[in-house]
């Protein structure tokens, strides 16, 4: 095997932060090389150095590609050499067709006039390569995230990719789409395309990676070969300590029922006659952690958001009781005063005001708690924020830092602090550990356990079944807008959850 890429002693300094500190990375031609590390470890920065987003000269160290020193001034330089990066946030234009997106900036054209027949023909070939059967004229917005991801890869293939970099490609994908993507990576490997895969998901790395480089705190810690890859080793190198237990210990102390939802029905906000939630009902007791499992599109987020201030859907009906008394949750303010909180799946878009400091985000949902007759008491506000900073171990130089500068785990702690400050009885957490590294996940789990221990009820929506099984006292299984089963901790297993879903889907078909 020959070495395709070698990055030697790469250092990159931002004002006040050393993001990369002499990182070494060596990638062989034709392998799938995984890069693993906690959020903020420097993975993305390293890839930005490689792809020319940080041009040659703005970092220290040397990059050898194909035996020659790489001196990229921009992304187009690196793309011309076949280095193509696919970012976590997809760079597709939703209103343009697949064909237009594939050749965007790279059009099949003569003197600026596009040759459409040839474009469509090439598009079909590329789509076939990534296993899609869509028409080239289909608008990208009509495709799901999984297919969009494949379009991104097709786009890379259109540019004669030699080194494909994928930044957490499966973070937003559900299980079967992830599998397809990984299969495609293996197929591309067979065709001689080298890939770098940045991922948090250890099972994926196990499945496709030939070697893995682990980065911690801006430095490369180790590179492991396939034979050496074990989950424990990866976790140990990532967090710098052994993690005997992935889930913190907890002795449940479950009291009387806190939240009772019954006969909950919700219709789609735009498409008339499409029912999103059908006759759903569930309960949460004091000190209990209840999980909601289901595939993507099962209606879990829709259920939670419609409950929380009717933030999703129309024609909502059903009853909600908190502590045995019926409550009105038709606006967010009413839901909050009834004792509900909802931590959204999408922290950045729905949970935080990114350009505002931590302190302002923490008090946003309960400004009444830090004001008198509409006038803010900033001293008290800062004390409240400082209190949560130490209680939640939010790692930041101060509460006046903008949240946009925090890592995913710390951002999630800010969102949790915001809701805790409203003193909720029941917290609904939607994918609370998505995009968070292993170490921070453990902290979030511990916080959840603390909440339950304080006598609050916790509802956890998650796509990661091991997490539900590790954390929850009871698990409801949702499918196609209905709750199709309920399993106790003792009964629950991945197989039984999947069986409930599949059996239900079979019935409907």
């Amino acid at each position, binding site marked *: 095997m020959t070495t395709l890429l070698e990055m030697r002693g790469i250092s990159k300094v931002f004002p006040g932060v050393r993001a990369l500190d002499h990182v070494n990375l060596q990638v062989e031609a034709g392998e799938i090389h995984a890069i693993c590390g906690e959020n903020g470890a420097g993975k993305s920065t390293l890839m930005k150095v490689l792809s020319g987003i940080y041009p040659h000269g703005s970092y220290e160290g040397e990059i050898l590609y194909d035996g020659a020193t790489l001196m990229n001034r921009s992304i187009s330089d690196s793309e011309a050499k076949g280095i193509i990066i696919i970012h976590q946030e997809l760079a597709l234009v939703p209103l343009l067709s697949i064909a237009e997106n594939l050749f965007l900036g790279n059009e099949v054209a003569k003197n600026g006039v596009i040759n459409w027949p040839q474009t469509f023909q090439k598009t079909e070939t590329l789509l076939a390569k990534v296993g899609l059967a869509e028409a080239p004229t289909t608008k990208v917005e009509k495709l799901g995230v999984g297919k969009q991801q494949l379009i991104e890869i097709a786009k890379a293939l259109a540019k004669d990719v030699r080194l494909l970099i994928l930044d957490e490609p499966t973070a937003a994908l559900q299980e079967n789409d992830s599998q397809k993507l990984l299969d495609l990576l293996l197929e591309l490997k067979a065709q001689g395309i080298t890939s770098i895969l940045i991922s948090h998901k250890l099972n994926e790395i196990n499945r496709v990676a030939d070697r893995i480089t682990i980065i911690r705190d801006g430095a490369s810690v180790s590179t492991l070969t396939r034979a050496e890859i074990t989950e424990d080793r990866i976790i140990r190198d990532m967090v710098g300590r052994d993690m005997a237990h992935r889930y913190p210990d907890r002795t449940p102390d479950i009291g009387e029922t806190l939240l009772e939802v019954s006969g909950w029905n919700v219709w789609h906000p735009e498409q008339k006659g499409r029912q999103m939630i059908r006759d759903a009902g569930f309960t949460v007791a004091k000190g209990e952690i209840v999980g909601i499992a289901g595939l993507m599109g099962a209606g879990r987020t829709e259920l939670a958001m419609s409950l*929380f*201030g009717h*933030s999703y859907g129309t024609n909502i009906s059903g009853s909600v009781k908190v502590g045995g008394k019926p409550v009105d949750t038709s*606006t*967010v*303010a009413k*839901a*909050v005063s009834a004792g509900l909180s*909802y931590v*959204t799946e999408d922290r950045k*878009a*729905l*949970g*935080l*005001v*990114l*350009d*505002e400091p931590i302190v*302002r985000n923490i008090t*946003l*949902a309960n*400004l*009444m708690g830090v*004001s008198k007759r*509409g*006038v*803010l008491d*900033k*001293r008290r506000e*800062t004390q409240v924020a400082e209190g949560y900073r130490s209680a939640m171990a939010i790692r930041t*130089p*101060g*509460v*006046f830092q903008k949240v946009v500068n925090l890592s995913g785990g710390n951002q999630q702690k800010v969102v949790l602090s*915001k809701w805790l400050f409203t003193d909720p009885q029941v917290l609904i957490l939607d994918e609370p550990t998505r995009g968070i590294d292993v170490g921070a996940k453990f902290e979030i789990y511990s916080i959840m356990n603390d909440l339950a221990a304080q006598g609050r009820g916790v509802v956890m929506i998650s796509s990661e079944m091991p997490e539900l099984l590790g954390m929850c006292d009871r698990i409801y299984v949702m499918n196609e807008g209905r709750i199709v089963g309920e399993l106790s901790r003792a009964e629950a297993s991945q197989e039984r959850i999947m069986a409930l879903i599949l059996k239900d889907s079979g019935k409907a078909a």
Partner: protein
Amino acid sequence: MMAEKKGIGAHLGGHLRENGMMMALVAIVAFFTIIVKVVLDVDFLSAQNITNLFLQNSYVIIMALGMLLVIVAGHIDLSVGSVVGFTGAVAAVLTVNLDWPVIAVVPTCLLVGFVIGAAQGYWIAYWRIPSFIVTLAGMLVFRGLTLWLLNGQNIGPFPKTFQSLSTGFIPDLFAVGKPNVTAIVVVALAAAVVIWLGWRARNRDAEFGIEPEPMVIFAIRNAVVAAALMFVGYKLASFRGLPNVVVILSILTVLYAFFTENTTTGRRIYALGGNEKAAKLSGIKTDRLVFLTFCNMGVLAALAGMIVAARLNSSTPKAGGGFELDVIAAVFIGGASMSGGVGKIIGVVVGALIMGVMNNGMSILGIGIDYQQVIKGLVLLAAVIFDVYNKNK
């Protein structure tokens, strides 16, 4: 966890925007003072010209206060110039044609402004029609209505009481005559309060573990501000005293600064502009807030409309034409962000003063309106480029 002490230079770099605007204003004033002296041998900072500066620009500052809220909420209001014309016309018709007493006209006009703001805000907030379009329509509609109401002619003159809105002065309570002692006392008190508030904020920062600005800068900045205030106050006092408009302006500025920084509603407007969805999911009634910012804008535009009419002593169909652009420019020069969520009252006032001083200085120098427009446009562009450059650095 205290951040390590930074030097004076680093601090200035970090607060380039806030201090930079102040310095730019000082530099522009100094520039015109020298040039006007050299070219025309006239005192740019004469008592009369300073008074004029405030009278000419009061309406821009007043509307910029409301426009900041609109822009922070992530919207824009293009109709304010036409609303100025329309409310001026309403005031003229009521006072001149219908002989209403001024005491009834003022609240009626403010109410008209409120209703106009509400009518536009309704579509923007509850129907989610882009504010650019709704207020562009409003701009045309109210310009047309102004023409209709005035029948295409000027209406005037106004009675003395109405004129005093703009051209009146606070009488000297100490009855000394010249200089006007009331003006000096009021300004001295204001300067003292500014320094005291600054000192308090500085101590509070230290208590919260935010690195306070270096003592030298704090001292220099406050000395400059206080000196400028006292200088302006003295000049005003030696002419005719404090103009009523300056009093209205100062009270509104303080109120809005307090509102934006220290009230829950103010805070919510910033959150709404920063991330509307997150604000909504935090229980904030975002629709109603947007609606109210437009109502507020309408009221301030009506106030400005009356001040403009009182100053011209007649209501003309063209009054207020193009004001919206001056106001919006002042807000952006003052550091607000087009995408919402960012901007401070003090910045906006300084931004408006920069525009005002330039208008005034260039007019005195006899620079043609053609060049004036070009220069103002370039200043706006430069200020925003400066912002973006700083942000990316």
